[in-house]
């Protein structure tokens, strides 16, 4: 009846085309094209107006600029490690359903729904030198001087953790509760203690999901922008690569250089993703063969 546009026996007909076209055009025009245009632009510096790697050369010879790559990794990797380890611990402990589950998940999604700006503003107050936390610590005599928790590295990490922990936790909880509980039961009857069940049975099966969660948290943290501005030292210790790109675009009005920095940011995320996928391949080789078709 229908001769497929995209191959034999395809169910792709005129109606399908008409239905898909608007969204496809939208994604192509406002996602794919800007990406390609950004790459093109980054290779045609403002001053030269011809093909050149000058933007990239400038970036990697200027310590103030290439330093941002290191600064961003220093924020993103520890955050991703802490978030995924804590989320794994909590999600594993709560894999069999929890008391007040719906309430707890609702509370956990609050930070995500409230958004990074409100959260950062709250953290500025709560963790600030005169905030409730320092008041309590001083009052209890635990510290003599207020702790410096904002306008530095710690402040940014706090904000990243609050944003990404719930996301990572709920993702892992879904992944772990999808693992057949009778695997645990059978391992127990074969003589495994709870710890050995975790080490030898559950962790290998969780590893692929954990790698994905870690990768997502890392990629999100690597693009850290507003919390690095609000809670950190945007011209110093927490000048992330996104800040560098933003400054070139909207303070120096050098879109070409800004695009180059955005491309470098994207490549760093891609490199990390590929590395994680490779590790995941190793981790999961047995398991994927094991589950066969799934």
């Amino acid at each position, binding site marked *: 009846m229908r001769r497929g546009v995209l191959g034999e026996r395809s169910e792709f007909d005129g109606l399908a085309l008409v239905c898909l076209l608007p969204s496809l055009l939208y*994604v192509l025009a406002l996602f794919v094209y800007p990406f390609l*245009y950004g790459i093109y632009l980054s290779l045609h510096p403002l001053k030269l107006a011809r093909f050149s790697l000058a933007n990239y050369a400038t970036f990697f010879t200027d310590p103030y600029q290439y330093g941002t790559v290191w600064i961003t990794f220093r924020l993103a990797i520890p955050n991703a490690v802490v978030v995924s380890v804590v989320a794994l611990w909590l999600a594993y402990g709560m894999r069999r359903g929890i008391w007040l589950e719906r309430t707890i998940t609702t*509370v956990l999604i609050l930070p995500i729904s409230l958004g990074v700006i*409100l959260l950062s503003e709250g953290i500025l*107050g*709560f963790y600030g030198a005169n905030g409730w936390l320092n*008041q309590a610590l001083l009052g209890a005599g635990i510290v003599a001087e207020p702790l410096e928790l904002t306008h530095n590295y710690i402040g940014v990490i706090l904000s990243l953790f609050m944003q990404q922990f719930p996301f990572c936790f709920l993702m892992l909880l879904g992944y772990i509760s999808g693992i057949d509980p009778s695997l645990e039961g059978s391992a127990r009857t074969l003589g495994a203690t709870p710890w050995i069940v975790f080490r030898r049975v559950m962790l290998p099966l969780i590893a692929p999901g954990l790698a994905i969660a870690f990768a997502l948290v890392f990629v999100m943290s690597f693009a850290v922008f*507003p919390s690095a501005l609000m809670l950190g030292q945007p011209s110093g210790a927490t000048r992330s690569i996104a800040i560098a790109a933003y400054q070139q*675009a909207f303070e120096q009005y050098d879109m070409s250089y800004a695009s180059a920095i955005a491309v470098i940011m994207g490549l760093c*995320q891609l490199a990390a993703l590929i590395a994680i996928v490779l590790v995941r391949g190793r981790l999961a080789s047995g398991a994927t063969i094991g589950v066969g078709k799934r």
Partner: protein
Amino acid sequence: MRGRLWKLALYLFVIGFILNLMGIVGNVLVSAFAKRWFGKPLPPAFTTDWFVFAWKNFDLGQVLGVTLFVALAAVVLALLVGTPAAYVLARRKFRGKALLLLLYFLPLLIPQMTYGIPLATTLYRFGLGGSLTGVILAVLVPMVPLAVFVLMPFFEQIGIHLEWSAAVLGATRFQIFRRILFPLLVPGLLTAGILILVNTISNFELAFLLSGGGSQTLVVALFYNVFAGGVRPVYSIDAMAVIYMAMVMVLLLIALRFVRPTQMVFRLEGGGR
């Protein structure tokens, strides 16, 4: 029992997390109503003056108008563009479908800051930077895929047999859509609409990169005032934050009547794996 201690530790962590969150949110709330507040557990006197101050000085009427307009426009446009695509992706099999899904998935996966800069560059080049249109076009980039991925399972749930039996009974394509698909899809449209609304209102990066003088959404205005720091009294900024928070909370309460909490987070749901 070691198992008991373990469970206890888990609950302590959750309680700690909740206390921390309450501290963060409570700080903003108390500060917005404080006359003066410095180094004490609670301010000595409360007032609502800062809301009046914020409303006048931050031009909040205009900002709120922009925010609602952007959010509603995003909902309508994303649903209009996304629904037919979700239908085809849920119903039809064709070569290249996996690739197409991946393409739609990318704007949700890649951080907005990463593609926001080239997107802003492009929109500025076409003269749309700083305009309301530019803001709406930009925030739609992740919202169209979100609409697609939220609606797909709803279409899958409506068995194709319903369409077949309606066709056998003599319904035309349009009648099938109007009389069968649309009524059954209402919960899906509601879910997707609310998710898009909440996400757009709290979207910072894309709105920030595209907004100009008259096209700031509430979060963007909030950011500028926090970051400008010191120029305005912190209480007035917190009053603005409370208005924003109230708006998000109301939407969230409505949203939770229709969606599972996890759906609020898993914008990726259905797309991955």
